[in-house]
């Protein structure tokens, strides 16, 4: 195969879908034309451009049918756990139980984007006192109130402490509305004092043993609650098996990221890679299918890499992207401006690392949770960005801020300074709200200027 992979409009992607259906190609039960989601109100999908592979079609279908899966799980009598402010720990525990499905209510933050605000989740949040000053995650509160999205979970867990002030406030408001929450504490990760007993964390960091012990004890409370909900024990054996499955997904994603961000030409668009990376946090309410979706995507990327087939011409400017964008169109824009992804740090990079398999499972999960970039200093995050940007050969760094997200207030300055000092790369900060249309010219100018800067640097 040669030539460029194409980006398709929603209508073109749906034609591909119908052709595959007509040809009798094997497709999962949830697959179908994406236009049905537009009819449901997700009008923003019409503005996106999609990768032209069947693997990407499956990825999008999988993402957009999560609410259906949750309702089916409820109808089938399975227990549903909402794992709030959790970037990849409690879902691993929940999916270790056979009759439990976990999901990520915070994921509702994307709903105002894909629905172009028409659904009014922000309006509901505003009426609850959660206005513009809060992170777009406030949309979740609206989804709990209007009950038009996910089913109300049987158990809600939420980490609190060093994770996110915004989210804590939103979750507390939710609890005041009558949704009880099992809170578990996450301390602010600190460097061990000289002589203080310490342990290694995934991602290359170290933390005091006492902090890991605290997180472990907090997660033990979550374990007990999950077991009680499921009506069956959640022993180390079950957890070890659950960790093994989670690591399988992380392994698939690791290989996918390596190929997608290192190969030239770039074999998979930035938009699909963003969606794929998100699967590592919460499995999109179906762990086994997550693995299958990622495996198909990886096959496609391997095939394109072998054939030298990319979504951009070879030599496109390689941008390292920090933080997920609230408006998915910006990932299309990145390529429209002549750039490609050369690495990412979407604030949940710890969920991409393998959970240590040589430790007791609760100890391994506690260390994993404490490796969350959000709970440590921004310089730790910057160190990881430097390491990964160097590994992927990134030529510039984009720090994408989310309006109202408190973890973003100062981190851009710190990360920018470290990246400039260590790698001498240009760093640009963007602010991307859920619907970025009014900012389109300025976003385009910044990205185009960054690409021009990168190309000029190559001549030096």
């Amino acid at each position, binding site marked *: 195969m040669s030539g460029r992979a194409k980006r398709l409009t929603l209508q073109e992607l749906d034609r591909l879908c119908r052709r595959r259906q007509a040809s009798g190609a094997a497709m999962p039960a949830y697959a179908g034309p994406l236009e049905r989601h537009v009819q449901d109100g997700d009008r923003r999908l019409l503005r996106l451009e999609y990768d032209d592979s069947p693997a990407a079609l499956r990825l999008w279908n999988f993402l957009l049918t999560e609410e259906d899966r949750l309702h089916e799980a409820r109808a089938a009598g399975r227990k549903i756990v909402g794992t709030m402010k959790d970037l990849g720990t409690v879902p691993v525990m929940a999916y270790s139980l056979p009759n439990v499905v976990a999901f990520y209510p915070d994921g509702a933050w994307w709903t105002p984007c894909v629905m172009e605000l028409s659904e009014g989740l922000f309006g509901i949040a505003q009426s609850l006192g959660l206005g513009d000053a809060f992170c777009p995650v406030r949309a979740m509160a609206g989804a709990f109130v209007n009950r038009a999205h996910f089913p109300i979970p049987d158990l809600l867990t939420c980490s609190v402490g060093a994770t996110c002030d915004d989210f804590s406030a939103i979750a507390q408001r939710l609890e005041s509305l009558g949704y009880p929450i099992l809170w578990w504490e996450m301390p602010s990760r600190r460097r061990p004092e000289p002589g203080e007993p310490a342990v290694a964390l995934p991602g290359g960091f170290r933390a005091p043993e006492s902090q890991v012990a605290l997180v472990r004890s907090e997660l033990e409370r979550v374990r007990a609650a999950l077991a009680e909900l499921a009506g069956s024990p959640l022993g180390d054996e079950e957890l070890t098996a659950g960790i093994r499955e989670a690591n399988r997904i992380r392994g698939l994603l690791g290989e996918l990221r390596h190929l997608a961000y290192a190969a030239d030409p770039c074999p998979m668009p930035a938009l699909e890679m963003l969606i794929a990376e998100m699967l590592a946090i919460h499995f999109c309410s179906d762990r086994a299918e997550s693995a299958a979706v990622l495996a198909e995507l990886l096959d496609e990327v391997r095939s394109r890499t072998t054939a030298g087939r990319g979504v951009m011409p070879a030599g496109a400017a390689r941008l390292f992207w920090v933080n997920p964008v609230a408006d998915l169109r910006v990932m299309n824009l990145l390529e429209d401006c002549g750039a490609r992804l050369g690495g990412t740090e979407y604030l949940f990079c710890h969920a991409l690392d393998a959970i240590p398999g040589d430790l007791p499972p609760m100890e391994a999960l506690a260390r994993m949770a404490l490796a969350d970039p959000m709970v440590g200093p921004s310089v730790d995050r910057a160190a990881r960005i430097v390491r990964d940007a160097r590994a992927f050969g990134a030529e510039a760094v984009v720090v994408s801020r989310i309006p109202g997200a408190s973890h973003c207030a100062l981190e851009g300055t710190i990360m920018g300074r470290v990246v*400039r000092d260590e790698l001498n790369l240009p760093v640009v900060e963007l602010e991307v709200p859920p619907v970025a249309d009014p900012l389109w010219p300025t976003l385009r100018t910044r990205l185009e*200027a960054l690409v*021009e*800067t990168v190309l000029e640097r190559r001549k*030096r």
Partner: protein
Amino acid sequence: MISAGVDGGSRAIKVVLLDCRTRKVLASGVCDQGVDHDGLARKLLEQLLKKADLARSRIVRLVATGYTRNAIGFADTTVTEITCHAAGVRHRMPKAATIIEIGGQDSKLLRLNPDGSVRDFAMNDRCAAGTGRFLEVVAARLNAGLEGLGDLARAASSPAPISSMCVVFAETEIIGLLASGARPEDIVAGVQASIASRVAAMVGRGAGAPVVFTGGVAMIPGMAEALAAALKTPVQIAPDPQMTGALGAAILACRQACGR
């Protein structure tokens, strides 16, 4: 051979015609921006060609830049104003290390490498308080044209503190200052200091010297001094500062056409 640069800014359109061999400016001009970006730019270009007695066919390449660059249909290509201002300033001031550009709608910081290429940049286009728009508001409120602001600022004895972070609220603050008897001269100087402080915040620590100030706002007397005070470093004004974007576009057009 002639190259052309068109800078379609938010408030004005600027055009430069450049001799590709000598790199000398053959003609340059400015007109107000309007609704028909392409038509206005085209008209200005034709006027300049006529004035310089040059045929359109002698233009070997034309680069458009600025906010409306993608609307300039007769351009051969577009380049962002970041790259163009760097090229334009370095053409005139080869030692420039830091460029501050303040236009009608945004402000920019460019850090340059020793060879003149852009090392890094930052932009403010979300808040009018760091742009020429703030000066337009105060000029209107004081019934003084933009060109008169410099004279007013020069006569200031004690710049009025403007504490509002938003131009809309700052305008209210200015009304209050006037009502309390503050001198218009001191208010203008206060607004200039306010803009400068916002730009200084964007610059952060360590603006490499020499710092060059360009863009339309650099033509307003007093602004460079306000910037120098905020940055605590000398600030030089680029020659013909309003034209540096268009000049840079013409230079890049020339490089693209001639390969040098």
